Structure formats: structure tokens, C-alpha cells
């Protein structure tokens, strides 16, 4: 039974046909396809996770956000879950503000001010950098999760299982995979709580307060689901799938480019880890970001 429908609180997602669809792919849609394919290759995520976890470089993270944004834009046109993103968007901004407030600058501050009797806020280049990095990380994660989990073009988890049968990406993806279900559950929970009289619309504060009731069942349900999912993956023996070979580029130049880029990336990550806060190497970050995209380009065979 197909579900979801226009209700008073429900969002309707319809497939829109692009006017370009009949006239061949545009440059943007080609890029979108390439990045989409990169995700499907199952390698995007591990690299993205490494990038998000181990770099503080704003430029590299910005690239990450752009790449994820392509996915997010793509998916918002076709698949559901767009509304869920709205709940996550304020978080990176909050992280930025709290970063500025809670991590005082150790270098020459640009602004200094007193909050209350005991707290002095010192905002300098290093604290701005740190807060921005954190903000972009969270933004990248949010967009990445959104892009991957609501991807309407294929079953990402399936392709990862098929191509890269490794425990880490499976576990990471299966966690991310719960989000669409969370989105669908959210609607069911809202309906149940409305009838129960717990969730009522009214003033802004009342609405926010009553929405608070949603968080607990959503979180708990997703934990329960992730446990059950782990059981199912184990019971279904999906770890035992033999991974078929990775998709290789047809073009020798693409292959060479990918190999060089991959090699350099391996070299660059420790460098980034070493320099971290004290030398924000923007150029290095930009190079890394470009190499990252090229690597994906080569791996997916130029967006075949």
C-alpha cells in the first residue's frame, strides 16, 4: 500500500520533471550525476567520514559541504525527507555561536567582552576558525546524511554491500539509513500524539514545547531500530557477501589521475592532522578538495 498523502501537517513530495530532461543533461545535472555515482560507488562515505573526522581545514570542509549539497539539492527535488532537514539546520549555527563563546582565543583577540561576572569572551582568528570548522563539519554531516539517506535513485546500502563488503561502511551506512524511517515515523508519532492530546498547535512556544515530546520516541525508536537492524544484518549473513571488484575508470588518464590523487590524499591527511589549528593551510585544503573530487571522478569512470 502506497502511503503518505496530503494532510493538514503532511508534506507532499511530487516528482517534478525537469525541463532539461528532454534536451539532454545540463552541466549541473552531469555534476550531480557524477557525485551521485560517487556515492553509489560506496567509497564516498568512508572518505567523507575521514575528511570530516580528521580535518579542521575550512576549505576542505567547504568542498565537502558543496559536494553534499549537490546531493541534497538533487534529492530534495525527487525524494522525501526535505522537511526533516529543517530540524537540523539550526544546529550548525548553534555550534558556531557556542564555539565562539566557549573556546576563548589564545592569540590576539579581535573582540573581547564580559558576560556576567565570571565569563570573558575572547574572539580571535583561531576561535573563529575553530568554530567555523565545527560548523562546516556539522553542516557537511547533515547534508551528507540527507543526501545519502533520501537518495531516490537507488539503494545506496545495497550498492555498498555489493561493492565494498566491509564492516565499517556497512555499519556507518546502516546508521545513516535509519533517517528516512525516522522521518516516516515522525509523521506517525505526530498523528498518534495529536489524537492523544499531547501535541497541540498554538503559540510558537507552545508548539516548540509540545514538539519536544517527539524527540524522545524518535531517538528511542531509532536506537531500537539500529539494534534490530544489526540483528537482521547478522541473521541475513550480509557480511558474507563476496565483494565484486570496484568499478574502474575506462579512461587510462582517469585511472592514472585517480591513483595519483588517492596516493596524495593518503599523504595529505597526516599533514593536515599535523597542522590542524595553528596553520590553517587554505591552499592545501583547496588542493585536497579538488583531488578528492577528481578521485571520485576517476573511480566512477567519469560519471558513467
Amino acid at each position, binding site marked *: 500500500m*502506497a*502511503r503518505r498523502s496530503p*494532510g493538514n501537517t*503532511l508534506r507532499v513530495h511530487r516528482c517534478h520533471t525537469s525541463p532539461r530532461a528532454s534536451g539532454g543533461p545540463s552541466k549541473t545535472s552531469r555534476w550531480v550525476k557524477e557525485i551521485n555515482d560517487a556515492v553509489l560507488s560506496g567509497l564516498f562515505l568512508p572518505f567523507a567520514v575521514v575528511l570530516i573526522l580528521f580535518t579542521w581545514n575550512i576549505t576542505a570542509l567547504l568542498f565537502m559541504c558543496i559536494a553534499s549539497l549537490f546531493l541534497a539539492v538533487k534529492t530534495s527535488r525527487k525524494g522525501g525527507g526535505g522537511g526533516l532537514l529543517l530540524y537540523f539546520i539550526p544546529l550548525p549555527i548553534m555550534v558556531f555561536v557556542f564555539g565562539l563563546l566557549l573556546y576563548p582565543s589564545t592569540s590576539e583577540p579581535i573582540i573581547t567582552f564580559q558576560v556576567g561576572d565570571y565569563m570573558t569572551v575572547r574572539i580571535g582568528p583561531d576561535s573563529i576558525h575553530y568554530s567555523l570548522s565545527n560548523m562546516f563539519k556539522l553542516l557537511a554531516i547533515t547534508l551528507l546524511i540527507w543526501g545519502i539517506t533520501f537518495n531516490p535513485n537507488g539503494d545506496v546500502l545495497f550498492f555498498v554491500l555489493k561493492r565494498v563488503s566491509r564492516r565499517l561502511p556497512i555499519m556507518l551506512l546502516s546508521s545513516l*539509513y535509519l533517517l528516512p524511517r525516522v522521518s516516516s515515523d515522525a509523521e506517525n508519532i505526530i498523528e498518534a500524539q*495529536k489524537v492523544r492530546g499531547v501535541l497541540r498547535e498554538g503559540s510558537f512556544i507552545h508548539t516548540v514545547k509540545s514538539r519536544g515530546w517527539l524527540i524522545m*520516541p524518535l531517538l528511542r525508536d531509532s536506537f531500537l531500530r539500529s539494534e534490530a537492524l544489526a540483528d537482521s544484518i547478522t*541473521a541475513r549473513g550480509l557480511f558474507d557477501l563476496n565483494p565484486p571488484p570496484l568499478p574502474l575508470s575506462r579512461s587510462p588518464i582517469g585511472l592514472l589521475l585517480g591513483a595519483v590523487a588517492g596516493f596524495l590524499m593518503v599523504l595529505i591527511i597526516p599533514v593536515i592532522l599535523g597542522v590542524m589549528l595553528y596553520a590553517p593551510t587554505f591552499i592545501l585544503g583547496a588542493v585536497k578538495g579538488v583531488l578528492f573530487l577528481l578521485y571520485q571522478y576517476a573511480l566512477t569512470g567519469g560519471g558513467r
Partner: protein
Amino acid sequence: MKAVMTRGLTFSYPMRSEKVIQGLNLSIDVGELMFIVGDSGSGKSTLLKILSGIAPFTTGGTLSGEVSVLGEDIKREEGRGRVLKKVFYLNQEPEYYLIFSTVICEAATPYLESCGSWSAAERKGMETIQKWLKGVEPHTKVSHLSGGEKQRMALSHMEASDAKLYLLDEPLTHLDDEGRRRFYLLLRKKLDEGATVLITTPSLFGYDKLKEMANKIYFMNRKGVEKGASVMGGRIAVKWEELGRDRIRREQSTKPLLTVKNAVVSLGGKRVINGLNLTLGKGEVFVARGENGSGKTTLIRLLLGFVVPEEGKVSAPWLNEKGEWMGSQKIIVGYLPQNPMDIFTSEDLASDLFLSWRTGKRRERFKSALKRFLTLFRLEGLEGEDPYELSTGERQRAALASVFIRYPDVVFLDEPTRGMDGRALITLTNLISQMKGESTIFISTHTTLFEHLSDKTITLPAVDEREREGGGVRG
């Protein structure tokens, strides 16, 4: 040869002193069909998890005693690895068993290894969809399937499996007659091939055909399994009169409470409800029956105002002019969703019931209402428990308690029998029969359990029938 052999099997989950299974001795021969029937919370699901090699390896916990599955010592890592390949385990919650997002990926994955290529597996997957999920688009999201369709999807994996031992946790819960028929045929085929099947269920209601096929039926409680014992004895229900019925003034009115006129609803481009006319008076019991995917949940959502009709009109005190939910001060509406977990918001059951009581009629003080409903639904001692930690059957009973503690004027129950044991089913039917004439009750179900209580019944057309007629539910 024994397919399963346990001696003194004892298991407890981490951070819990209470033993879920204690000193269990069980023996199943190869090629047998065995039933384990037990109240919810008796450890049936945990037993299957242990035998399938999942617990305690992914769940944590302490396992002691001897456990041998298909001749392998399941407590050893190597033995467990071999068992995992020979055992098929079906979770009682099909939505948790299914892990991919599209129907075609779910249908094709079991064939991937045997077919060797995705395209060949995809072809087999298409055949599976035709057989088990007729009328469902291959690229439909799994989360958009109904509970019964998810169960069918999960059972289709059993068909593809060449396991030697099948461990099925409440496999008939969501299945309609057609799904059950397919399941019987599949089970017969597997038994003929020499496989061993162990089925757990909270009650034998609806298992008539399977009972005839069974070699052994065991009853399980916290102390172990017992052949031929009964779970149906003991106190079965508290009378509705005790719930303050005498204080309720009966209002017999000829004016219908809910009216649906020529309602048309389409979902995903398909017409699910087509020109439905329906009236529901005060104190009536209305049963909507239908096959999996026939639109039972959509019908409830229409009546609750969470689906707005494209054409026609739905009028009820809790709906606004457009037919959208707005709630009512005068009429208390109760709703048991298909997934009972959508109801719970608190960390312990008592707090959750308090929340429901507060938004209800508050006919009596909370303490006495709590005691009354905990007793009625056999939840004594669980008031401090996290509703998410309860077993499926206990959770369903807790959700029912949460609905009825509000003393609703109108109740919508979506598949209320899910995971319920025999005593709980009797309690529920007794409760409904006693509420009849006083509260309006709408039940959507695939079983015939409530038909003798109903004033009005509607049978929703099956998916293929609907396609043939070019429309959905007609009334």
C-alpha cells in the same frame, strides 16, 4: 539427529539481574515442526535469537548451559559462524527485519549469491514481487508498505533460503488469508525438503491449519517449557462495570457521530478509497476487514483527518470543515496506531499513562486508574519499566492501556491483536463487548476475531481486485 538441543539454558540481558530464560531444556528432531506458545515476556523471542546465533553476540548478555544447533555448539565462535549460514531467522517485527529501502532490492538480495549477478537476481526478485506482493511497484519504498506487505516481503526471503532450520517469530501476525495460504504452502514445501521449523507465538488463535501440521506444541513461561500446559487459565478480564461504567450516562442518539460521503482518496497515484459512504453512530462497533495493503490504515487516517479526501466529505466533531484533524473538547478520541511505540513518550510506563490520563476524562484519581488498567492488561509490576524495553505483546497491552485510561468516547484501533497472547485477546474482546453501546469503536483488522461484536462491517477490496475495478474502497 537433533536439530536443536538445549540443557539448562539460562540467559539474561546486560545490566539486568532478571533471567529471561532459566534452565530451559528443549529438544527438536530434524524435520520437525514445533510450536512454542507463551505469554508475552516469557522469553520466546530471546530463545530464537539465541538459537540463531544473534544473542548474546550482538545483543550482549550472559548465556549459560548447553546449546547445540544442527550439531554445532552455538557458544563457540566457529560453531556460531557455521550455524548462521544454516539457519533462517525471522524477526517478529517485519519492519526491523527489512533493511533495504526499495522493494526490488529486498526481493533480489536473497538471490544475489546464487545468481551471481545483479541482473539475474533482479529477475528473480521481480518474480518474488509478482508472487508475494502483487500490485506493488518494484521501486516502492519499503517504508511505504503496509504491515502485512512487509511481513509477506520478509516471508519471501524464507522461500529463497536453503537453510536447514527456520526460526520464525510470530510469522502470522500481520498476514491476511491469502498471505497465510502462501505461508502454509511454503511451510509444507520446506518440511517436505527435510527442514526443521520452530515457530513461536503468543496464542494459537488463527493457527488452526498449522496446529494440524505440528509435531510438538510446547508452552513456555519464565520457568521453562512445558508440554501440553495451558496458558489460557487464570483470571481473564476485569469487568468493564468495575471501570466506572455505572457512572457513565448512556446517551442513545440517532444522530450519527461520523459521516463519510462519497470520499475519494488516492495515494501515490493509485485510488485507495473510491466513493466511500459510511455512517457511524454513538456506541456502535465498526469493523473494517481487508487483505494486506487494501487500505485499512488509510481509512482510519481518513476518519481521523490525517488524510484529506480529494472528493467528498468527512464530518465528525474532531474534524474541521476540510476534514482535517482539529481535536474536540467534548469528545475524547482514542487511537491505537499500528506501531504501538508511536504512543510512548516517557521513560517509564506510569508517566506515560499519566500523560494519557491527564488528557482524558479523568473519571477517577490517577492512582486508582493506574492500578485498574495495569491489572486489566496484566501489566502489574511493569509501571516503572521503560515501555521500549517491554516485549512486543506487553508493549501492545501497554498501548491499549494508554488508549483506554482516557475513557475515550470514540476509539480507533489499527490491528489491535498484534503480538497479543490468548488472555490479552480475551480481555480485549471482553472490553469491547462491554464498551459497546457506550463508546464508538472502529477496528481495522485482518482477523475475524471481532466480527461477532460488530454492528457494521466493511470488507476492503484486495489490491488486484481494486485495480480491476479501477477504484478502491467502496461503501
